[in-house]
């Protein structure tokens, strides 16, 4: 069932120790190499802006920083960030809820799986821009980004839950039955812990995509308070430094949510021991 082959691999999973260990080496990265990469990144940026010689085409890091400071002290900024944060979370939570419910159903029932599969295939293949444009026709400006975020996150989480449910170890279920473990404890003791890493992997991919599509939808739907609206307006004013500044804000938002998720991920006890030492 190819439509369920999700692009995201769980960071863990019993049979995927390579993926798991690989995904969790973040801490062991050499900090100096990371630092060097960041320095080179800024160097390229700086040299590029010098080469173009025009802040309208490519503002320098310093000009972007100035734009960012200007944004931070402006009145509408925090409202915009708050509103985007709210829309992103709303869309994301909706996709989590629906993805988990429908994914769970599809994971346990072959019929449901066959039924849901074409829906996921169509949603996955629809260009984001088509979804945004249609949403503009169907919804109010404030709701457009929420809907787009939901629709883009849903198939990812749904597909991962289906995969997780199917990966539940049958030999463990047999063991539980032989020992007459009551059904509720089979669910909490075997099913949930098996699916959880798949859920977290889906959530982390979906969240990353959600921020991008929410901001994209905001650029077109232009709610009063939104990072996307800020981006669009800055672009109309040819204030490229501010476009960069808003972009930096969007990157930080995405990075912060990723860091938060990694914290949750690390709390999964049966995975902590791979952090070594």
């Amino acid at each position, binding site marked *: 069932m190819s439509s369920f082959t999700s692009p995201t691999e769980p960071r863990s999973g019993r049979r995927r120790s390579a993926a798991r260990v690989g995904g969790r080496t973040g801490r062991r990265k050499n900090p100096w190499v990371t630092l060097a990469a960041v320095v080179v990144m800024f160097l390229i940026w700086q040299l590029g802006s010098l080469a173009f010689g025009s802040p309208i085409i490519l503002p320098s890091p310093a000009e972007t920083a100035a734009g960012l400071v200007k944004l931070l002290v402006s009145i509408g900024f925090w409202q915009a960030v708050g509103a985007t944060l709210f829309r992103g979370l709303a869309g994301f939570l909706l996709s989590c809820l629906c993805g988990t419910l429908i994914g769970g159903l599809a994971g346990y029932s072959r019929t449901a799986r066959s039924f849901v599969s074409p829906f996921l295939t169509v949603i996955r293949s629809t260009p984001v821009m088509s979804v945004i444009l249609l949403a503009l026709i169907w919804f109010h400006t404030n709701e457009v980004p929420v809907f787009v975020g939901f629709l883009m996150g849903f198939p990812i989480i749904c597909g991962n839950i289906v995969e997780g449910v199917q990966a539940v170890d049958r030999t*463990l279920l*047999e*063991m*539980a039955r*032989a*020992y*007459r*473990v009551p059904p509720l*404890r089979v669910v909490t003791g075997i099913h949930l*812990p098996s699916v959880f890493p798949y859920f977290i992997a889906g959530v982390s991919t979906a969240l990353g995509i959600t921020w991008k599509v929410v901001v994209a939808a905001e650029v077109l739907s232009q709610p009063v308070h939104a990072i996307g609206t800020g981006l669009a307006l800055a672009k109309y004013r040819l204030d490229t430094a501010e476009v960069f500044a808003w972009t930096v804000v969007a990157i930080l938002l995405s990075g912060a949510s990723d860091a938060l998720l990694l914290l949750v991920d690390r709390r999964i006890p049966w995975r902590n021991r791979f952090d070594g030492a």
Partner: protein
Amino acid sequence: MPFFSLSIGGSPGAIVLMEHEGMGIEIRSLAKSYGDLVVFEELSLDLEEGSVSAILGPSGCGKSTLLNILSGVVSAEVGTVSGLSGRRISYLFQEPRLLPWRTVEGNLDFVLQDSYGKANREEASVPKRELTGRLLDLVGLTEFKGYYPDTLSGGMRQRVAIARAFAFPAEVLLMDEPFQALDLSLKVSLMGAFESLWRQDRRTVLFVTHDVQEALLLGDAIAVLSARPACIVGSLRNDIPHGERSLRDGRLLDLERELYALLGVAH
């Protein structure tokens, strides 16, 4: 009086293993097939209470199906099993089958929780902890009770499974080649772990294996199963006390020769 006597069963060629004591588990005229594949047609067997009955037979002869029928996972088409109803069964599989997200102690707890009730957690946890502590001590894993299965070796994981089987309050223990897929020294030490637990808690054990030495070392009665459709081609009794069994013992070697004869292997 011999423990087992052989008599001809209902269908021609099927040999029924009879037992002269009243207790224990009686399996009578069991038939099971999957489609055209006849696993057994007329299988009868008695398991003596509080002893280890080993079933020796070639791979794929239906030994696991027999265990699954006894544990209720699979139902037989014809035949009866008496002496099992209402009794709890613990099960030792070929693989440890531990929950990877639970520690060694947590894995024992997973099958134990109901037996010690939840109503009075504090009170119940004391005897439960005593029991798991004692069992883990017997299989030599006391220091590892807080470890997750992935950090243990294969042999240690199977030790946990053995401790779990004995922790679960059952009178009957079914074992499906649990010492397989391990190297010889591990196998011997695991069988030792089983022995030390079983001698403290003499459950009625049905032990399925294709390894002659395993059957000789653990079985008090050994029945040899034929290839499909499986029937019992013969059986013998091993009277050597559990503590004295050694593969170099002359008495055991005699039994070994008998077993090889029943298996149709020149030795």
